């Protein structure tokens, strides 16, 4: 299992390196159009062929991977930070406030996630730059992905606050900041990390679903999701199987992330 996890980690790091270094690696831009070679099959010049506008598919795949794989962890971090803040605040306040806060969290969590995404997506500004659209898409994911993490964080925080070692530390006169740094944070880390690792693949998949439906990252900026929007004409896949490259990369990355994060994660509404 250790070898498999190590291989997956190496693969993920390799893809990240290629995605982040997409510019220098390809020497081209994802917008560059070679109109003379539009809709070409894979060959020596364009390894994955070109799209209908003559853009190199491999270059766009690397840039698309960068968009999805760099911004999804940022959104997962945002969701985890909100969950940690709300969960620990509820546990610290305790009593009625904790019960009321957790009830509201349950109400929010009971809303099917994809519909909440659609609600926010439906009223986005009309004329936005692709860079703004991608930021908004991932910000929405981060702002809506926290509810499932609040209860575990609150439960863990409450357990740590009421623990013997915390009482002893408080009785010994240790300051609040030190208590937080030396006792709370290390004890909360496993739960927080589990939420982060559980939401990361969910966000990559959510972006793919949204973009495949034309509601995610806007053209010409590529993402793994909007590169797959060509699949909506499903007959094209049988004729041009190299179109599947973004799907293969996405599935491989999610599978590798699942293997890496297998220990102690709880997956939720992962559509």
């Amino acid at each position: 299992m250790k070898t498999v996890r190590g291989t997956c980690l190496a693969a993920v790091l390799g893809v990240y390196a290629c995605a982040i270094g997409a510019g220098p690696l390809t020497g081209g831009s994802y917008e560059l159009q070679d109109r003379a070679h539009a809709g070409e099959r894979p060959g020596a010049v364009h390894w994955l062929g070109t799209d209908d506008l003559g853009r190199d598919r491999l270059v766009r795949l690397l840039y698309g991977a960068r968009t999805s794989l760099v911004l999804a962890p940022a959104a997962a971090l945002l969701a985890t930070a909100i969950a940690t803040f709300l969960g620990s605040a509820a546990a610290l306040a305790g009593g009625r406030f904790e019960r009321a806060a957790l009830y509201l969290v349950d109400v929010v969590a009971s809303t099917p996630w994809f519909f909440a995404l659609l609600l926010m997506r439906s009223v986005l500004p009309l004329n936005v730059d692709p860079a703004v659209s991608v930021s908004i898409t991932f910000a929405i994911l981060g702002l809506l992905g926290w509810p499932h993490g609040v209860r575990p964080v609150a439960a863990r925080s409450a357990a740590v606050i009421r623990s013997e070692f915390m009482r002893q530390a408080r009785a010994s006169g240790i300051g609040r900041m030190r208590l937080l740094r030396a006792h709370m944070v290390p004890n909360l880390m496993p739960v927080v990390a589990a939420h982060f690792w559980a939401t990361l693949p969910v966000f990559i998949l959510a972006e793919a679903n949204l973009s495949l439906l034309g509601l995610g990252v806007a053209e010409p900026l590529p993402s793994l999701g909007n590169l797959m929007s060509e699949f909506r004409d499903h007959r094209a896949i049988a004729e041009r199987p190299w179109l599947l490259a973004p799907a293969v990369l996405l599935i491989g990355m999610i599978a590798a992330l699942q293997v890496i994060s297998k220990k102690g994660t709880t997956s939720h509404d992962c559509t």
Partner: protein
Amino acid sequence: MRRTLWTLAKVVCRTAARLALRLPLIALFACTLLSLAPGFDSDERRLDLRFSASSVAALHHAQKASRNPLVMCAGYLKGLARGDLGESTTFGAPVLGLVRERWATTGRSVLGGLGGGWILAAGSAVLVMLLRSPAASGGAAALTTALICIPSALLGVIVMLLDGLVEAALAAVIFPRVYQYTSRVLAQAAAAPHVRSAEAAGVTRWRLFWFACLPPAFPELLAVAAASVSMALASVVPLEVICDSPGLGQLAWKATLGRDVPLLLFVTLAMTAAANLASAVADLGTEALARSRS
């Protein structure tokens, strides 16, 4: 008997009251999401060159005034109570009529998908548990992990390529998630000391499953069933769009593209109500089970 019925009626009333309290809160959450969205006060009409500067300013002012989520929610709930769900801006038709035309399609897809997914998942979990073969459990784990890694929209594409139905795609979305929970719950029940000692005493695996593993796992399986309804409702949007099935998911997608807030708000509330209803029914089942045991 009368006492049991009275207790059950009380539990049902309590659950219904909880659900009734939840719905306005969900509406408020949805209105808050809308009002917080960065483009809430943008209006397509503001791009229309026929509108003068003062008309555009008036439109902007009107949009800004309706940004308070409490006011928006109160207005919406008042309309809902009167049976007025508003008019769809995309279709130019009453929201209720549009939903009425399509809910049966979505209902059929969800029921079919849930049924198929659960039969596959529960069947595989029970089979893996009875066989106790590392190859079977490894194979099932690999298959479910692979399926979980595929976006539901892509599963829809694959099903379309195979000339399948939305129900099949939905079953493929539900199966891996339910399998992972179900097999974990059953494995926990099978690892209990009394089950192990019974097995050592020669009780058959099937009897053990039926009498010792399933009853304690049942409340958790009910909770998984409720969660799977929510999963199915969330997956219905990409699947109905990809498979071109005229249900509520496709309607929600069209409403999103057309910035049709009244329609999208009602579909979201209806879907959330359905998910909450499933959860309430699961809670009722768990409570009834606990009472019958005590």
